[in-house]
């Protein structure tokens, strides 16, 4: 039966047999940087206060492409008491999203000054550790539906592996968290310690869009506008991750590794897969470290988040694409509290069956995340 008018999130809580939503992308924020202070050695706190954050772009804070809304957030997600930024109040998150949407498992993905991409690798590692401690203290210990991400200083493969070893055994953590815009394509061997540790701990590795690689956002240089960064830059950075992981043999090396691509859309995945298969056929000698076609690795190892939902003019195009990606590979994500938020009951097009909806919004996630 087609899901012609899915109920809205606010009515979902009233329904008796509501779906237990698994959300693969929720962004918790610190109320202020001070939240991390208790989890940092004095040395690193002082360092950050003295030199600020230095990543591979010019500004210590400002995004080079101003967003469409402050902090790229829903305007209704700012705590009314002025206590902090969107995503910083658990209470508001519960009231505004988790409860009405019926989220049973929400996987966190902290962004901002988390240490990722820091030029000073030790500072980066210290802030990642602090961010991981803070997630337990402020979020997962307070709401059992939420699971933390092991935020890793991915430009330093060994420090990243160390951090996964440190906390990866704890039930609070559901995934390892990297950003797509890295300094080398993420299949490069310098990142393999991350995958080894993640595989050991049965943690999927999430690659979330953003990051400061130091390279122009696109292979054609720096674009002018946020829309170019957002519509093109993010999805192409996600395509680079998939291409690199597959072609550089990561899944041969780590046959149990699970990967989740987050917030880059998903419509591009079938065409990219078709493209990689053709290229592989013609270049088997260069790629002799691969034992199977790219599409087979993708089908086995990669899951992809549904947000931001693709919205072609003709919904049949989307229904085709969902099928081509595979309803078993798609994980619902809300991206709460960001402006391109998707609601689990409104985001999907009419024509998606309740079974498919349940797979994408609940079942698949339970298979991917260690819960």
């Amino acid at each position, binding site marked *: 039966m087609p899901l012609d008018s899915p109920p*809205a999130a606010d009515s979902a809580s009233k329904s008796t047999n509501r779906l237990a939503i698994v959300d693969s992308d929720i962004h918790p924020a610190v109320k202020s940087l001070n939240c991390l202070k208790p989890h940092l050695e004095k040395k690193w706190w002082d360092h950050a206060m003295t030199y600020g954050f230095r990543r591979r772009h010019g500004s210590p804070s400002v995004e080079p492409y101003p967003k*469409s*809304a402050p902090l790229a957030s*829903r*305007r*209704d*997600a700012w705590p009314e008491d002025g206590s902090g930024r969107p995503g910083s109040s658990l209470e508001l998150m519960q009231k505004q999203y988790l409860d009405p949407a019926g989220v049973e498992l929400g996987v966190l993905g902290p962004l901002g000054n988390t240490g990722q991409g820091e030029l000073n690798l030790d500072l980066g590692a210290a802030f990642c550790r602090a961010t991981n401690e803070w997630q337990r203290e402020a979020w997962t210990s307070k709401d059992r539906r939420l699971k933390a991400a092991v935020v890793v200083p991915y430009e330093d493969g060994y420090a990243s592996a160390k951090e996964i070893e440190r906390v990866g055994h704890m039930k609070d953590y559901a995934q390892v968290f990297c950003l797509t815009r890295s300094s080398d394509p993420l299949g490069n061997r310098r990142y393999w310690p991350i995958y080894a540790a993640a595989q050991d701990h049965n943690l999927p590795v999430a690659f979330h869009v953003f990051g400061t690689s130091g390279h122009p956002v696109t292979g054609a240089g720096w674009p002018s506008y946020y829309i170019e960064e957002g519509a093109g830059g993010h999805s192409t950075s996600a395509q680079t991750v998939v291409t690199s992981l597959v072609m550089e043999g990561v899944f041969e090396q780590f046959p149990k590794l699970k990967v989740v691509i987050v917030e880059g859309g998903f419509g591009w995945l079938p065409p990219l897969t078709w493209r990689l298969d053709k290229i592989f056929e013609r270049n088997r000698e260069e790629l002799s470290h691969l034992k199977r076609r790219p599409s087979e690795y993708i089908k086995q190892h990669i899951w992809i988040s549904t947000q931001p939902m693709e919205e072609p003019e003709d919904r049949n195009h989307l229904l085709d694409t969902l099928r081509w990606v595979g309803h078993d590979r798609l994980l619902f994500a809300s991206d709460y509290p960001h*402006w*391109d*938020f*998707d*609601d689990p009951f*409104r*985001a999907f097009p009419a024509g998606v069956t309740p079974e498919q909806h349940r797979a994408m919004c609940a079942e698949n996630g339970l298979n991917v995340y260690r819960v």
Partner: protein
Amino acid sequence: MARHVVARVDEIAPGGRKCITVDGRGVIVFNVKGEFYALSETCPHKGGSLAKGIITGLVESDAPGDYQHTRQGEIVRCPWHQWEFDIKTGRSYCDPRRMRLMKFDVKVEHGANLVEGPYVAETFKVEVEDDYVVVEV
């Protein structure tokens, strides 16, 4: 269709808005420079509530690099995906043919006229000497 008295005129200042529920339906009454307009609260895109949407001007352009900024205070943006709606017409700017907010007729009526009915004003004590915003839903 019934006429609902939803606010005293001085309750909604210019630039302000009031969210109300009429017959179970969310409606927002905007005061744009002294004129009142009423739109459905729910965004036709994916259901965001316009109650917290920022109110802005309109930017139009004749050529790359040209920014004509007019009609300050007449556009409301959905707090979710940032679609722009014309407060006066409910029309969207990103898909004017297909997407608009439902618009309701608004009148300002003197209390003396309202006491005569027909109108619905359960939550209001209508005073003969004041002016009221009346929405037809």
